[in-house]
């Protein structure tokens, strides 16, 4: 059993490009899913029974079924309705919807932790509900769950590897392709693992540093 990493060298460029695709789709689906999650949270917390039920159902559906099934449903199932998506679109939509369901719960924890007094102060000042939601409680809520959101981002990055199964040319896909070309399975998988791990680690690190910059106002908290 001999390991020879040299065979992988010529493919490093391909791996790094594929890593870029993984990161790209992660960022895109995190942002889209993140914004969606705030809306879903608001919907779930709203007093309109039907809306609240729909949002609860959506969260329950996407958190209790495998991401792979969700990807299959969107990529293979939607064409039934005439919606034909390419692998990029299907991956983006599936990952965004999946991410939104997790972020909605995270965000809910954040909003629950905002002291009721802030809402009362806003109301006492005559601010309308939309302003209280967006200008008063949103930022402190996000600040409270920032670490969880970072974890979710890294998790999304790792699970984006599932998009390889429908052919998205991201990192996992590249690893498997190189494997089939060089048969250096352990080597390419090890390098791939290293790339995933190092990226996740760096993201967490940068996020930690960024926290102090993003939330300058939370000096003592």
């Amino acid at each position: 059993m001999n390991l020879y990493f040299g065979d992988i060298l010529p493919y490093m460029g391909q791996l790094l490009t594929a890593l870029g695709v993984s990161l790209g789709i992660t960022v895109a689906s995190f942002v889209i899913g993140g914004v969606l999650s705030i809306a879903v949270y608001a919907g779930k917390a709203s007093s309109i029974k039907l809306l609240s039920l729909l949002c609860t159902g959506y969260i329950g559906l996407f958190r209790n079924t495998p991401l792979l099934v969700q990807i299959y449903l969107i990529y293979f199932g939607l064409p039934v309705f005439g919606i034909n998506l390419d692998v990029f679109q299907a991956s983006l939509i599936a990952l965004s919807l999946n991410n939104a369901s997790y972020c909605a719960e995270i965000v809910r924890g954040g909003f629950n932790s905002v002291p009721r007094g802030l809402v009362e102060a806003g109301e006492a000042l005559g601010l309308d509900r939309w302003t209280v939601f967006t200008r008063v409680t949103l930022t402190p809520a996000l600040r409270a769950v920032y670490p969880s959101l970072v974890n979710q981002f890294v998790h999304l990055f790792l699970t984006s590897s599932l998009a390889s199964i429908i052919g998205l040319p991201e990192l996992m896909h590249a690893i498997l392709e190189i494997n089939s070309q060089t048969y250096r399975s352990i080597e390419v998988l090890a390098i791939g693992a290293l790339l995933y791990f190092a990226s996740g680690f760096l993201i967490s690190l940068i996020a930690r540093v960024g926290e102090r910059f993003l939330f300058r106002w939370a000096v003592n908290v």
Partner: protein
Amino acid sequence: MDAFIEQALGLLGAAGWTLLLCLTSGVAGTAFGFVLGLMQISKNPALRWPAVVYVTVVRGIPVLLLIFFVYFGVPLLLGVNLEPFFTGFVSLALVGAAYTGEIFRGAIQAVPRGQSEAATALGLNAADTMFRVILPQALRIAVPAGTGFLINLVKDSSLIGIIGFVELTRAAKILSNLTLDPLGAFLMAAVIYFFISFAISRVGALLERRLTPQFGARKPRVDDPALTPTGH
């Protein structure tokens, strides 16, 4: 309608395999994870560091990658060719160990220090302290996270289909190719997964309620992120 029932039964059969896979790898992973949890809080660096490294690395790479590692690696390294089920079992157990390792670590550390101090003061040895005093309390703390872990395990098992084992998701894929009805097949699979998760959540809630009276009316407060139900 007959076709529907036939298909549903087929998928339910595959779901049975999913559950078997999850049960076996869950038990193995939890046992291994328990050891890892103890190792992580050990005062001996020779025990602590390998465990910390293992848990951090396994949690920092995609599950799919780990599955392929086992799938390609075991034949190459050990010269054995594994059945897909066994490959799945090993992969999920390895992943499970890392996650339950964190859960055990967090739960044991969440038990107030005074408990082990009292046990030692009473003259109990280390084994008795751990198994009679600390663990029962840690178990209660670990239930929400443990429930989340099991649900994640069931979801991760869907990836074992990629290497050829016919679990629920792969069965749905095969079905969709046969019937040319991907929507129906995957929706049926989704519903089955949902019910499995729902059942696990219910059992978890029941377990929580059963265990709580032992520790007074209040639920123990824990801040460790490893112990939240989302698991990740």
